[in-house]
């Protein structure tokens, strides 16, 4: 995973900047994505049909961004579009997300943590197929209106998996393990627009406006892939649970909330899944025990937690199974209520239990930081390779 920066007068400019810097990564990801889709038996005609449907629901800014990515990387627009469809279709990221605010935190401000779990359930993208792994990037974008967004994304995708903007609005997402969820492509469902919705959400000045935007979009578009979206600012935590026929919103102004991949409000839709239950209960336990003292340091601890393990029931997930799900990065977003531009995002690249413990494995951005402060190792992607580990830190005898 590396860090890239782009700025411009339009979404197309931003996309062009990213496309130029990430041309090789985009080509690699598209190639990997297509192989993945093929290995799961995705039919080309079906893909085209979904692409048409997908294009109709994207907003103009997203299409402009894709156009820019295409021009900058010299990859055809249709390939970029198909890649985004596949990405949203086949991506079955797990994840555990925590947020705390008000009396729940040491400062009274808001904090959001996401541990990003990626399953290796693809025949061509298993954990031992490093050459086929997708390349993720930390992208810092200065938008035409001056809004700066920092987000983690897959090169070539116009969606993000977590991020923060100039106004102190933070976002993250989780997949929803409901009864209708099927990770296999042949049973896959289109309509996971979470990544796009999060990026669109970060165009807003407040979490409330971001939520209103997303709810409006959820009425307009058909989302068949269950999931959870988070929008947090200095006064509010909003958690949106989205299923094909239902969605719900939880609003927290004082306290904390947790999600693994189970729904809490729409509980009746959940599939029975031990890992989700373990991570949810462990998350609640840690937040309750640390109520009033939750800060970045505590969130780092939670992100590295290995209770209920070993294996996939850890919050910091490890797996020796080639097809198992592992935590491959984490982000902590600290919203600064006095000066939102001073809000910070800390990103650990690789297994959190290794990456948070080493200064070389994580990086903290203040939203108005310049790119010149970012160490070269984060710009070339070598950190991730160094800190993604099969075994938990405690078991390595370090």
């Amino acid at each position, binding site marked *: 995973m590396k860090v890239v920066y782009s700025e411009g007068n339009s979404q197309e400019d931003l996309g062009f900047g990213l496309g130029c810097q990430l041309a090789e990564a985009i080509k690699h990801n598209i190639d990997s994505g297509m192989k993945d889709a093929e290995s799961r038996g995705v039919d080309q005609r079906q893909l085209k049909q979904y692409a048409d449907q997908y294009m109709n629901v994207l907003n103009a800014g997203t299409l402009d961004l894709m156009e820019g990515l295409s021009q900058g990387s010299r990859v055809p627009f249709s390939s970029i579009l198909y890649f985004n469809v596949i990405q949203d279709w086949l991506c079955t990221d797990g994840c555990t997300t925590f947020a705390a605010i008000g009396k729940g935190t040491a400062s009274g401000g808001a904090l959001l943590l996401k541990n990003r779990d990626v399953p290796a359930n693809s025949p061509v993208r298993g954990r031992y197929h490093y050459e086929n792994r997708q390349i993720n990037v930390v992208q810092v974008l200065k938008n035409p209106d001056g809004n700066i967004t920092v987000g983690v994304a897959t090169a070539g995708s116009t969606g993000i998996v977590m991020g923060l903007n100039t106004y102190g609005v933070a976002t993250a997402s989780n997949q929803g393990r409901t009864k209708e969820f099927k990770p296999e492509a042949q049973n896959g469902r289109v309509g996971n627009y979470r990544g796009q919705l999060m990026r669109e959400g970060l165009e807003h000045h407040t979490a*409330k406006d971001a939520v*209103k935007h997303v709810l409006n979009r959820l*009425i307009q578009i058909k989302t068949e892939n269950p999931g959870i979206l988070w929008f947090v600012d200095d006064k509010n935590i909003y958690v949106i649970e989205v299923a094909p026929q239902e*969605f719900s919103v939880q*609003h927290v102004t004082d306290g904390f909330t947790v999600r693994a991949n189970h729904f809490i409000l*729409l509980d009746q839709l959940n599939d029975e899944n031990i890992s989700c239950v373990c991570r949810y209960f462990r998350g609640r336990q840690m937040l309750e025990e640390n109520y009033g003292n939750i800060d970045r340091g505590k969130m780092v601890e939670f992100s590295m937690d290995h209770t209920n393990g070993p294996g996939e029931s850890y919050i910091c997930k490890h797996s020796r199974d080639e097809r198992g799900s592992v935590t491959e990065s984490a982000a902590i977003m600290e919203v600064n209520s006095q000066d939102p531009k001073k809000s910070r995002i800390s990103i650990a690249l690789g297994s959190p239990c290794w990456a948070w413990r080493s200064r070389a494995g994580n990086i903290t951005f203040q939203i108005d930081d310049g790119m010149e402060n970012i160490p070269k190792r984060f710009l070339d992607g070598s950190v991730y390779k160094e800190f993604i580990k099969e075994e938990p830190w405690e078991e390595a005898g370090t």
Partner: protein
Amino acid sequence: MKVIAAEGTHEKIGFDLGCRLAEAIKHNVALREHDTRERGIEKKQLSSLVHRYMESSSAVSLKMMEGLSRGSGVPFTSILRFNALQDVISPEGCTNFAAVGKATPDGDAILLKNRDLSGNKTFSGSTYYNYREINITLVLKTPDKNVMVGVTAAGSTGFMMGLNKYGVAVASNFGQTIEVSHVPPGQLYGMSGRTQMMREALECSSLKDAVNLALGKLTDSPMGTPGILWFVDARNIYVVEGSFDQFAVMHIQDGIAVRSNHFLLLDQLNNEKALSSVCRKIRGNQLLEENYGNINKEKMMEFSMDHMNGPGSNSICRHAKNPEESVTVSASIMELNGKNPEKSKISIALGTPCWAWRNSAGNFTFQMDTDIETIPKNFRDGSVYKDFIKVEPFGGG
């Protein structure tokens, strides 16, 4: 309950209604003030609530209130306070059913609301009947040529249920959640009044706009009391369950939906002691499932009159000897027309459904593109409600 029509700008509509309903408005406002005092709501808290309510009200709602005030001679602040407390002081019970797609014979959606209301022994005078405030059926024509037909309380600028010219139908229920029993006396929550949201939704020309408006309001502020909102057009049913810090939305394009005062999406919030809600929900589901594919106006009328698990407070058509208990006081069936939304119809039974649906004198049907004058005069003077509101069930149950 009587039927009243008004036309013009929102202020003119308000003025017209104010003039015609002055006595009813005065009684309803006085009753609300009395009820507020009885509940021990502090003046300071009330003042803060009314202030926040005013800030969150749309400009047209405030214009209507101004008109009501001028027309009725009731001070604007009293009208405002009456509306601010509408959902908090008089939460409606109610049972709602909807069906769409394969569940109905023609695929077009249909919505039923049985409106339940509790009485108060202090309610007396010419504008009350059987200890309950008298409500009205309103037909409104706004300058944009929209027509809205719905049921409301005199003095309120909102609707409890209704239909517009664009084929958008709305209804609401109170949510009997566990939080309600934990709320300290006089404690008031959000500013998003269900009745105001219902009217504002009926001013929208599409269902999506109506739902979006409601969700935007709920994101700004929760409902005053937990509740359920329904938005239906010919092809879609949206059910919104809202509580103090959460809300959930269900979208149905093919099938059925039922709510009494029990949440289904936010099930964990339900007060399990509310037996009536559980009985009505289970019975409602049973009726809709047994009639799947054949649910039409006649079937909805049957459901509306159902006395299974009663007759009493657990039946869908609710009866009670004690005037302070909730009983069904009216029902509406809204038939949405997919080909021509202006041909959508609303049928309203005034009084106890088991009596009023069975007698052509107890109910009327209004097609959205027809003239108000087609509604018989006795519906417009309020006499029908008095004829058909009954303590005992039809045929002895």
